[in-house]
């Protein structure tokens, strides 16, 4: 064999350069360039905000608890309201709805006569990371940092590629800035 192509055996500047520079025959119909950042970098690569949300917290539901939870969800479903980020709490549920549907949900909860609280004017701050759940301790680190940085986190949720914090709308820019400052510079 008269060639060696192990990346470490050739000048590093070759990596990431257009193919045409690396090949002897520039007229070949070959891919035009090599992509750098082929996969998303580790850690947080994007932080964004979405506004116009309310957090609904239903508490002290009667036993059997699951049946009571389902009653609430059924009523909300029948009112044609889509909910997000549903979480079970020890005696109830919390979820997020669009501000435009908050009054409808409130009417449902009053009709069911269940104890509840609604926090309006909330925003969700989304921290995006590829394979977030596989990054050792990253979710816990983000949550710890977020709790320390804003007055109150109203709701939390995780997906494989995102962690979301629901906070008062006026606190969202501060939280966004804090996450960017603490985590986005850590990308390897």
């Amino acid at each position, binding site marked *: 064999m008269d060639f060696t192509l192990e990346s470490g055996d050739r000048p590093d500047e070759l990596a*990431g350069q257009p193919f045409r520079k690396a090949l002897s025959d520039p007229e070949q119909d070959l891919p035009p360039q090599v992509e750098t*950042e*082929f*996969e998303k970098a580790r850690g947080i690569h994007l932080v964004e905000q979405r506004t116009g949300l309310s957090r609904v917290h239903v508490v002290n539901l009667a036993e059997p608890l699951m049946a009571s939870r389902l009653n609430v969800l059924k009523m909300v*479903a029948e009112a044609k309201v*889509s909910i997000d980020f549903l979480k079970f709490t020890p005696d109830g549920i919390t979820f997020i709805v669009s501000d435009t549907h908050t009054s409808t949900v409130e009417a449902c909860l009053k009709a069911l006569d269940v104890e509840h609280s609604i926090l309006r004017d909330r925003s969700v701050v989304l921290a995006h990371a590829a394979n977030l759940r*596989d990054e050792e301790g*990253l979710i816990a680190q983000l949550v710890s940092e977020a709790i320390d940085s804003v007055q109150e*986190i109203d709701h939390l949720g*995780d997906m494989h590629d995102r962690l979301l914090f629901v906070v008062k709308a006026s606190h969202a820019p501060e939280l966004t800035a804090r996450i960017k400052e603490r985590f986005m510079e850590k990308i390897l």
Partner: protein
Amino acid sequence: MKFGGTSVRTKEARALAALKVVSAKEQGFSPVVVVSAIGRRGEPYATDTLINLVREVDPTIAPDDRELDLIMSCGEVLSSVIFAQTLRALGHPSMSLRGGQAGIRTDGIYGSARILGVNPIGVIEVLKRGSIPVVCGFQGVWVQGGLPGAELTTLGRGGSDTTASALGAALRANAVEIFTDVDGVKTADPDFVPGAPTLRRVAYDEVAEIAHLGAKVLHPRAAEIAMRFQIPLWVKSTFTDDPGTEIVSKEGLPPRRMTGVSHTGKLVYIQVDLDDVVPHHRKAFEARVYEALAQFGINLFMINMSPDSIGFAVSREQFPEVQDMFDALVLPVDESGKTIYLIQSGEEASRAFSTQLKLLSALGNTQVIKLRITEGCTMVSVVGQSTMQQPGLFYKVLSALTEAQIAVLQTSDSDYSLSCLIPESELRRAVSLLHSLFSLDQAS
């Protein structure tokens, strides 16, 4: 064309796989092959077997990650050489290439390196010589490793799928074909739903979601790379001529109902009730709990927080470490020092906890916070392309599971999925039930 462990496991399987390659060549394509290590867990050249060779030297001394990467990569080297020889035996010149020789450049995280760039001049050179390149999957090189030559790295779980997708993207391939032992992406694990149909066309995001949530047919990193570079991706069987599943951009698909049901993980659910934490200490208490988890590098799932509790799931593998970490942990959250929070992490108080409690009692009010631990959990998910925003979806899923007396401990959701934490003992029933609930036997 990527061939997984079962596709290169035996001489017969390799012959079938090689014939697929020859057929592609005869149709006028220039096939580039990526192979996994031969066989599966427990078999002589499988990755786990190679790791054990090192671990068995002295089980009390953990091998270095760098050394593990070197030995793990041997499985793919063996496989590529044997596959290239199989192609030569069929009359087709072939040459095996290591990941670095194929131009796969990664970051320096041994065991789970990410691809930074691909410069496939080696692959192109082999093609120009009229040979079929057979590339070792799962491996790349870290160029800035510090030693002469590049440091070999491995790409972690699903690494060979990722290699195939990345090479396909770099080469602007007509398609990337992932050959395995099933005939495509199914609506559920066929071990749980024997009649689960094979999806003929799915969107990149759907398959990435279903793979993230446990489907093993394709690694999500491979789908994400293919999506980013818009390379058509196929999942096919090595052992049949079934057309398989084509994975494309969602713009090319009609709006879809549900895609499938997937499941993942052996999990432990941990809840911390905050009733016994003084209200103005709660924020600091929560922050320190998560800080401790972060310091131990614990990965969390299904995280939740309400005014009266926090909760999260951890993998069963990490649970002993979590339990050890929490046992007798003192959380210094009261600046006045009047209240000391001490965590009990098991049903029974450990010796460490009892000793700590006795010592702390002399200092002030010690408040014991007992974790509520539910072992034996798993996550079942329904995945869909555009149905997740429909009102009533949570009710539909949760009422069906509750009616079947399957306990749901927690939920999480995304744009494409809704997941429920359930007892592992109910997994089979839950998958089957949700598959029927959304009429996925009719999916295509």
